Structure formats: structure tokens, C-alpha cells
């Protein structure tokens, strides 16, 4: 028996639904996350498309104001808590972190399974508001008080869902920190660790330390709604600004929970497709930690117009600008990694290059919002909406899809159609810019966010943006269709189709249950040290 199983890959060792949903194999858990995340992502996309359709013309197009408010809230809740926060760590971190460290699983496999179950329960709770209670919350994903305390929509369930999802995030973070400390292959020091592992390490600390704050804050809303404890609602002695502080103390660092893993992905893609070592390994590794650290002290930039003291505004503005420095360092090092490479232009690289471009627009528009004078004008306008979609979707989203195209042959042992993937990428990229760039413009013109209806002068950019959403969806469906087709009819690939020296490419595709069929060899002189002389 034991000899027979060694040839089987992790898909083949066991079959049936229960062998998946109760699996403690990190690879299967990663895929469970992938399938559930993609489902919720498509729900979120659908809601987004409906919103854009409503905004095609001023006045009512397809839905009432109240429905629109619930749709944008659910879109935000799904995209933030169900998709983008777990995305890269839960899917690719789970699947590849242990393999890239040269080990057979994470430190606590059962906890890992539990975190997926918690994620599923939390997600069902969030979506249950569609069916139960007085409809999904209409507060925006920020749940700002006192509105969230007063409205009769099902805020309680949405807030409880976010609370439950927080535990999933905390457990994944904890698991990764311990895994990185304890389970690295012999000979792999911290400074010889892949940069993806570094970025997950920085992310995990934020997940572990910041998430409890949002948990408690959201519980305070529930306490207020049910027992009338005067915490946030001024009519019973509370303070609405206190809520904003607590909320952003988590939710700004959460931006880095979403962004840092994407940086890790880019740091993997560029060396592989340039066939050379990464430029500035140390700078990239430590800038992740610097971003994670400074990111804790900038939350006030979400509150520049809340009546905060002048000193407060100045301090938070300076701190915000400081985060730009390590981020810029990363971008420069990535671009320099292309220098004198031997560049193989493949779909994953296209996503990486698009990431650098779109994330730069996102980051640079963030400078406009970090500066006091301009933020006063642009705060809570569509400029902010455009900015964070460039960062979150253009950044993390593109890195996620780049990673999916990159590791696809490793996970399933098959290759999708490269030409179709390239075409889908181009449509997706164009659609993205047509969708989100007009938001920056209409924000500068002064259109506030969360607007069901708008003044006639904002019509044209809104119309263009809605057209963009159709292009983007076309590209997205083509991309996903091509991947699904690859799952069924893709050509079989060997261990290492991209010719990478990272450890995951030394094992068969798909990998065996124990990850490696023979002891992996660490590349001499560092994880990206391609033999080029």
C-alpha cells in the first residue's frame, strides 16, 4: 500500500466531497478557498455591474435608491471581507508557502481547516442578509455610526459576519507566522527565503495584531443596537468619532493585508520571467516590514474632514507620506529586475507589468489624498473610489490573477491556451482603465461617492465608466473561461514549464500529498540566483 501512494498526486490520494471539505492538506484547503473565493468574487462583480448600470444615466435606471444603497454595501462587504482580505494568503499562501519553504504542510493543519470553515460560516452569514431580516445592510461597508445603529436593515448580521470572518484571518496569520519560523527547509535562513514568504510574514503580523480591534469595534455596534449601550450614538451619550478611530485603526492596516501579499507575488513573477535574480532582495524584504509598521500610524487620513484637530491632521498626513517611500523603493527594484534579464513575455508577466502600472496610478493618486489641502476637496468623492479600485483591484486583483496564471500548471498539471489568455488580458486591462479612470476625473469635478443619483454635469464620465464595466466583464469571462477550459482539455505540463528555480517547481505537477517526491534542493546563493554565467 505505502509504495503505491507515492506516485499519486494530491488530487488522487482520496476522492469524494468529504475528502475535500474535511481535508487537512494545505493544498486542498488552498483550493477550497480558491473555489469559494471565486464564487463570492463573481457575486461581487455582478453587484458592481448592476451599480454601474444604475449610474449609466442620472435618475433611476434599473433600481430604487434604497436597493442601490444595499447593493453597494453588499458589494463592498463581499469584495473586502470575502474576497480581497483572504485572497492571496488563503489561496496561494496556503497552497505554496509550505512548498516554497520546502516542507510538507503548515504548522497547524487542523487549525487551517478550521479557518476555512469559519470563513464559510462567516460568508454564509453575510449573504444570508439577502434572504433573512429586513434586507441587507444599507450603511456602506464602513458601518458608520450613528446611522448603522439606527437603520432597521440587517446590520447586525452583516457586522456579526465580519466579526466571524476576522477569526479566520487571525488563525491563518498565526499559522503562517509559526510555519515560517519553524518549518523552513534546513539551510533556508530568513534572508534566503522567497520574497512571497517575506510578504506573507509581514501580512500575518498585521492580521494577528490588527484584526481583534475590528472584532471588538463591531461587537460594540451590536451591543449598541441591542442594549442601547451609549458607545457611539451621541443621542445616548456616545461618540461617533470614536467609532471612526477604532474602525480605521484596523481598516487602514487591513489595506496592507490586502496589498502586501500582492507585492510578494510580483517579486516571484519578475525573476522567473526575467530569468535573473531579483534586484535589491534586502530592500524589498524589509520594505514590506516597514510598510506593515508605518501602516499602523496613518489611519487618521480617513478622517481629515471629521473635525479632528489641526495637529492631528498634520501628523497623520506626514505619516501617510512616509508610507510612500518603502512602496516607491519596491516599485523601483521591480523595474530594475527587468534590466538585463532574458524576458519571456507570458500571461503571468503581463499581469505583473499591469500590476506595476495600475498600482502606481493607485499609489500616486493616494498622494493626492494624503496631502491635506487636496484631501479636503477630494475626501468622500469618486476620486477615492477610483483610487482604491486602482490599488485593490488593479493591484491585488491583478496580482491574484497573475498568480493564478503562474501557478495554474503547477496546481493542475495542465496548461491553458496562452494566446487566449493574452487576448483576455488585453481586454481586461483596457476595460479596467475605462471603468476606473473616469472615476478619478468625476471625483475631481466634485461628485461625492455613494451617490444613487447625480447632477447632469457628471453624466459623461459616469457613462464611460459604465461602458468600461462591460469591457472588463468581457475580459474577465474570457479569462476565466479559458482557465476552466484548460482544466479540462489543457495540455499536460512537466514539473517546470516556466523554467523557474523556486522550490515549488522541483516537484511533480500536481504535487504529491507530501509535496516532494525527492528532497528539494535549495538554489545556491539565494532563492533567485539563476545560473547565468
Amino acid at each position, binding site marked *: 500500500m505505502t509504495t503505491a501512494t507515492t506516485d499519486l498526486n494530491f488530487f488522487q490520494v482520496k476522492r469524494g466531497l468529504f475528502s475535500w471539505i474535511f481535508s487537512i492538506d494545505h493544498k486542498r484547503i488552498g483550493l477550497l478557498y480558491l473555489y469559494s473565493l471565486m464564487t463570492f468574487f463573481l457575486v461581487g462583480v455582478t453587484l458592481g455591474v448592476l451599480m454601474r448600470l444604475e449610474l449609466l444615466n442620472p435618475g433611476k435606471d434599473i433600481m430604487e435608491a434604497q436597493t442601490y444603497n444595499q447593493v453597494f454595501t453588499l458589494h463592498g462587504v463581499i469584495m473586502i471581507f470575502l474576497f480581497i482580505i483572504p485572497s492571496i494568503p488563503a489561496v496561494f499562501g496556503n497552497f505554496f508557502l509550505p512548498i516554497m519553504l520546502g516542507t510538507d504542510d503548515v504548522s497547524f493543519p487542523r487549525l487551517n481547516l478550521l479557518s476555512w470553515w469559519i470563513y464559510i460560516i462567516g460568508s454564509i452569514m453575510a449573504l444570508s442578509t439577502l434572504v433573512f431580516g429586513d434586507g441587507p445592510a444599507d450603511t456602506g461597508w464602513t458601518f458608520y455610526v450613528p446611522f448603522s445603529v439606527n437603520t432597521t436593515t440587517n446590520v447586525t448580521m452583516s457586522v456579526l459576519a465580519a466579526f466571524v470572518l476576522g477569526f479566520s484571518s487571525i488563525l491563518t496569520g498565526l499559522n503562517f507566522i509559526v510555519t515560517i519560523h519553524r518549518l523552513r527547509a534546513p539551510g533556508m535562513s530568513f534572508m534566503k527565503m522567497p520574497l512571497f514568504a517575506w510578504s506573507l510574514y509581514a501580512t500575518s503580523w498585521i492580521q494577528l495584531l490588527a484584526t481583534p480591534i475590528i472584532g471588538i469595534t463591531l461587537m460594540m455596534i451590536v451591543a449598541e443596537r441591542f442594549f442601547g449601550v451609549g458607545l457611539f450614538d451621541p443621542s445616548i451619550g456616545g461618540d461617533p468619532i470614536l467609532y471612526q478611530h477604532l474602525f480605521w485603526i484596523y481598516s487602514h492596516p487591513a489595506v496592507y493585508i490586502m496589498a502586501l501579499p500582492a507585492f510578494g507575488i510580483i517579486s516571484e513573477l519578475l525573476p522567473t520571467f526575467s530569468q535573473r535574480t531579483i534586484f535589491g532582495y534586502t530592500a524589498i524584504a524589509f520594505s514590506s516590514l516597514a510598510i506593515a509598521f508605518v501602516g499602523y500610524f496613518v489611519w487618521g487620513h480617513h478622517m481629515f474632514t471629521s473635525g479632528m484637530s489641526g495637529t492631528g491632521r498634520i501628523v497623520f498626513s506626514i505619516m501617510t507620506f512616509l508610507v510612500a517611500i518603502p512602496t516607491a523603493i519596491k516599485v523601483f527594484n521591480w523595474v530594475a529586475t527587468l534590466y538585463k534579464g532574458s524576458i519571456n513575455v507570458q500571461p503571468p508577466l503581463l499581469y505583473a507589468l499591469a500590476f506595476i502600472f495600475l498600482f502606481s496610478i493607485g499609489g500616486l493618486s493616494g498622494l493626492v489624498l494624503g496631502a*491635506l489641502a487636496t484631501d*479636503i476637496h477630494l475626501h468622500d468623492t469618486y476620486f477615492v473610489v477610483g483610487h482604491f479600485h486602482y490599488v485593490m483591484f488593479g493591484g491585488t486583483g491583478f496580482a491574484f490573477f497573475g498568480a493564478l496564471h503562474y501557478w495554474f500548471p503547477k496546481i493542475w498539471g495542465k496548461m491553458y491556451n496562452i494566446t487566449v489568455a493574452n487576448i483576455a488580458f488585453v481586454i481586461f486591462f483596457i476595460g479596467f482603465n475605462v471603468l476606473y479612470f473616469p472615476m478619478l476625473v468625476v471625483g475631481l469635478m466634485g461628485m461625492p461617492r455613494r451617490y444613487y443619483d447625480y447632477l447632469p454635469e457628471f453624466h459623461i464620465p459616469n457613462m464611460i465608466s459604465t461602458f468600461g464595466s462591460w469591457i472588463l466583464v468581457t475580459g474577465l469571462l474570457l479569462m476565466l473561461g479559458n482557465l476552466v477550459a484548460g482544466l479540462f482539455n489543457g495540455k499536460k505540463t512537466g514539473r517546470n514549464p516556466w523554467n523557474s528555480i523556486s522550490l515549488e517547481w522541483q516537484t511533480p505537477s500536481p504535487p504529491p500529498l507530501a509535496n516532494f517526491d525527492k528532497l528539494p534542493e535549495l538554489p545556491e546563493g539565494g532563492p533567485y540566483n539563476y545560473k547565468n554565467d
Partner: protein
Amino acid sequence: MNTGASTFSQGVDLSLYIITGISLFFLIGITVVMIYFVIRYNKKRNPKATNIEGNFTLEVVWTVIPTLLVILMFYYGWMGYKPMRQVPDNAMEITVYGQMWKFSFEYPDGRITDTLVVPINQPVKLNLVARDVLHSFYVPAFRVKEDMVPGKDNFLWFEANREGRYDVLCAEYCGMLHSFMLSSITVVNQNAYDEWLTAAPIVTDEHPGLAILKQNACLTCHSQDGSKIIGPSFKGVYGRTQLVETNGETREILVDDEYITRSIYEPNADIVQGYMRGLMISYENIISEEQVADIIDYMKTLK
């Protein structure tokens, strides 16, 4: 972007141009270099890559330059913002009330208006009061915005330097009709302003109940002529029997003093058939019992 119309516009726009200029420089630079490398070092042209671990001088350069630039950008942002919190002593004070989903303005002489009229080149300080939930007072043309926070004092000030009519928008999400919470500021010369002051009478012969309804933006959702907006119309409502839903059960009630008081203080307790729950907040701490009596008195006149 629209042309500025206040003394802040210049500082805000200047910092916007500086930051956008620096940003465009980096964005174009990064993109061009990236595309050049991809073409120049394509594997067909360059089959053998060279390993370059890094370059200390470069790392220092691209740490120091962004640091200097962000300090510069911060500085311009700060300078453009600084005057916004320093209210001149000669500023005229007006109180702005924000509530779902209406702004109203109270002038020093006690007059209350829906839109603001101010003289040109005159500093105006707005004291921002929120009556229910968060709102935000935003005048894009003046480049100013401050949140209206219930239970907290906030303010903004401006000095308009161009005549015209400018939009006021609510920028903080405040519930169903957030995007309809609009007003305007008309900037006129001093003579026209003085004329407006004397022409528009302070006291009206309006029914006090109607004044309260207007002040609390009730009429945004409840019509006086029998038409259906978001809530039931006030026309002929008093003394009528009405089917309502209470805790999921339908029952018939008489619209009397008690019912109206309850509808204002606990709006979601009984829902008139054909209308949605949860769209109105409680006005328990906003409208006093005497005011409710005035409202009822007024409703009786709406036959």
C-alpha cells in the same frame, strides 16, 4: 475640474498640480523604462540574462529622492490647508443644520433658509450641526468640506471671490436619499446682498406646524397633496382609519394624536400598508412634544 471660487482654491489647486505633476513624471518614467526593458531584453534579443543583485548607490538614490519629494508634497498640501482652520475675526457666522436629507441655514437675524446667499469677499463661518446622523458639507467650487457630526461642533469658513451660484452637496453617506441632499450658495455683491436681506421677510405667517415639518425635512418624503412619495401623504390623514402592519400583523387603527406621536417617535412600530419599513429614523430627541402638537394641529388643516 471646475474653476475655484473661493480664496482657498488657489492653494488647493496649486498643491494638486504639484502632486499630479510629480506623479505623472514618475508614472510615465516607470512605464516607459519598463516597456523599454521588456523590448530591449526580450529573450530573443537577449538570450542570456545577467544576475545583478542590487546596487547600494541606486537604493540610496531612490530612497532619498522620494523622501525629499514627499516632504515637498506634504508641505504644499499643508500650506494650502492651513488657512482653512484660521477663521478671520470679521467672519459672519451662519449655522448650518444637516438632517436626513436637507440642509438649512440660520442667519444671525434668525431667518432660516434652504439655500445660502452670501456677499462676495466676505469671510463666512459656518457652524455645522447634524440633527440625526453624519453628513458632510461640501462645496466643490470653494474646495471646502467638513463633516457634520451629531453631538460634536465642527465648522468651516470660506471667502467667496467670484459671483455666481455654486452647488452644495452632502458628501458623507446618510441613508436613502443621501444623493438628493443638495443645496446651493449664491454669491452676490454687497448691494444685492443688503437688498436680499431687507426684501426677504424674517417672520412669515406660516403655520408653526408647517415650519417644523419644513425644518425637519419631513416633506421630502411625505407630501401635502395626497401624492405618494416615500412615506404616506399628510393630506387628510388625521382622523382617518388606516390599515397598518404591527409586528407582522395587519390591524386597523385610527390616526389620532397618539398614533401620530408614535409614528414620529417610533416610526417603525406601525407601517402603513404599501410602504417600506426602516426608511425613517426616530425623531424622539429632535422634535419635542410641543412641536408634535403643532404638527398635529397643522395636519388637521390638510383636508
